[in-house]
């Protein structure tokens, strides 16, 4: 029986609010569609101790956790692109030089992953328990061109739902609810997300998973 487990290297605590859920749910759909031999998708576990900037710390942490994961998900924000590319390159290089054999799959949005939360309008309406959105924030494939998704989310919470986005508890639970509700099909219209999806398929093929 194939069972799939992953750890997530991420930027900060707010990524934990939604990325593990979103990625796990996406993976469930991915394996059902492409790898029916896979019988289980375990939780995506964040590894805060790994940081995401320094290859040595990251590799050291991963070695300590060895055996608990089949795939490493590495998240870094995409903006500014020059810096993001540089860090990602450095990480990839150090990782392949290490003796860790599990595939490393990058989770890199065009700017910030928060944009992904906006991809599915229905999920926003549902998370905030509204009848409808009065003003349409960006959605679908355009979310990634949104210069500052956090500002859009703040406005959404404030103007549509009367919530104070400065209050962390409300913000966290909003992120979480959207992650539990967002349609994966909608997310796949976002190019950077689709890129991750493709990379993930490739990584699973590399692990010996057979297409159905």
């Amino acid at each position, binding site marked *: 029986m194939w069972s799939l487990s992953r750890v997530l290297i991420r930027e900060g605590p707010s990524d934990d609010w939604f990325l593990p859920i979103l990625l796990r749910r996406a993976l469930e759909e991915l394996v059902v569609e492409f790898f029916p031999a896979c019988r289980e998708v*375990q939780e995506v576990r964040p590894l805060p101790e790994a940081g995401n900037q320094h290859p040595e710390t990251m590799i050291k942490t991963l070695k300590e956790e060895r055996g608990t994961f089949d795939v490493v998900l590495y998240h870094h924000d995409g903006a500014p692109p020059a810096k993001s590319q540089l860090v990602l390159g450095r990480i990839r290089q150090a990782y392949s030089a290490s003796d860790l054999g599990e595939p490393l799959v990058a989770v890199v949005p065009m700017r910030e992953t928060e944009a992904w939360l906006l991809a599915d309008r229905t999920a926003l309406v549902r998370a905030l328990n509204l009848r409808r959105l009065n003003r349409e924030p960006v959605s679908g494939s355009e979310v990634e061109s949104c210069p500052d998704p956090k500002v859009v989310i703040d406005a959404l919470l404030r103007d549509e739902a009367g919530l104070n986005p400065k209050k962390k508890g409300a913000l966290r639970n909003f992120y979480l609810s959207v992650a539990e509700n967002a349609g994966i099909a909608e997310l796949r219209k976002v190019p950077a997300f689709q890129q991750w999806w493709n990379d993930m398929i490739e990584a699973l093929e590399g692990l010996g998973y057979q297409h159905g």
Partner: protein
Amino acid sequence: MITRIEIDGFKSFENFALDLPPFLVLIGTNASGKSNILDALTFVATAGTRGVDAAVSEVRGDARGLFRKRGDGTRVDRMRFALELLLPAQRSSPSSRWRWEVRFAWAVPEGGLEGITIETQRLVSLSSPDRVIPLVEGEWVVREGRPALDAFSGNHKQDGEIVRRIKLELTEVRSLHLEAGSLRGASELGGPRRMDSTARNLPNYLRFLARETASENRPLGVVGEIKMHLVGLVREISDFEIVEDERRRDVRLEFASPYDRGLDAEFASDGTLRMLAILAALHDGGTAVIEEPENGVFPERLRQLLGLARELVTEEDEAATSGPDRPLQRQALFTSHSPVVLDVVPRENIAFLDMTTVLEDGIASRVSRVRRLREDAGPVRVDGERWPRVTDSELGRFRAGVEEPV
């Protein structure tokens, strides 16, 4: 003593197995299946000893609701359990290990009422593997009212004896989910001897424990120990008395402190009564299953309580070898959310629950996952364990560290 439980198709369990040492604490996130394990144990033990109808009424939920619901809303039609038991050494007979396998099905018979039936069951000896209690393999059905294990008897005398002892072990599975209101109440003279799972009837239960275990020199039996431990754990209490009131025909508890005698249970603190009920359950023989002992208990005292529970249980090798006048056999199973557990309980006595997603014919369903904790620098992958062990980094979650992943 129950040494292993396997569950499939009951509530949130799919191909789930857990070895039970004599002392085990289940920790884990909310809605991860901790109480479901206790329900499973209660359900199968009650079905074995009192029948399916009683089993349904002892657990949370209705008959059909107990069958696992898949991600698409459909339900499975079968529930499979296996319990492995260690029957302690007794006078002439050495200890032996048995495995009881039982499968329940949801049945809608033509012209009859729908309900849970027992489809098949068998008892296998683990001590001498080719001994299977005869006449019990194969498909047959036991109806709701009859204790499942009764279907085994009526064979060889020796087999009947084994079944009787297994039944006894399972009768002694007691779960405890305390409720403040029940704890304070009086018992009636002539009322039930045991407390129920909310701790209603605690006074009579203490009286019963005292009678059962009294000896010439220890007139209160284990209740003497319970008193001593209560004083050690609560401090403000120096003693309690079980007062039998012939005129009111009831039995009440009266506490005493160094400064005050005759403090009625109604005025005792919640924590005092909780501790007392837990201590009582831990001093009885059999398997005590205790939900969230940390409720209403000061963390330092919880530490002491868990330490004490560990001392009170019977180690497996002790149960296997003890002689004719063996002391009570005791096992304790706790659920908890308290980080104190990690400080006082050895790793091998902790199991961590959370959820995972299984995929069945393209349908994703959430089910419970159980993992043991990794020993210091020990292996992550262990033979026979479905999931890798929990590492220290992940336990940070349970300790509620500064950065809190969801």
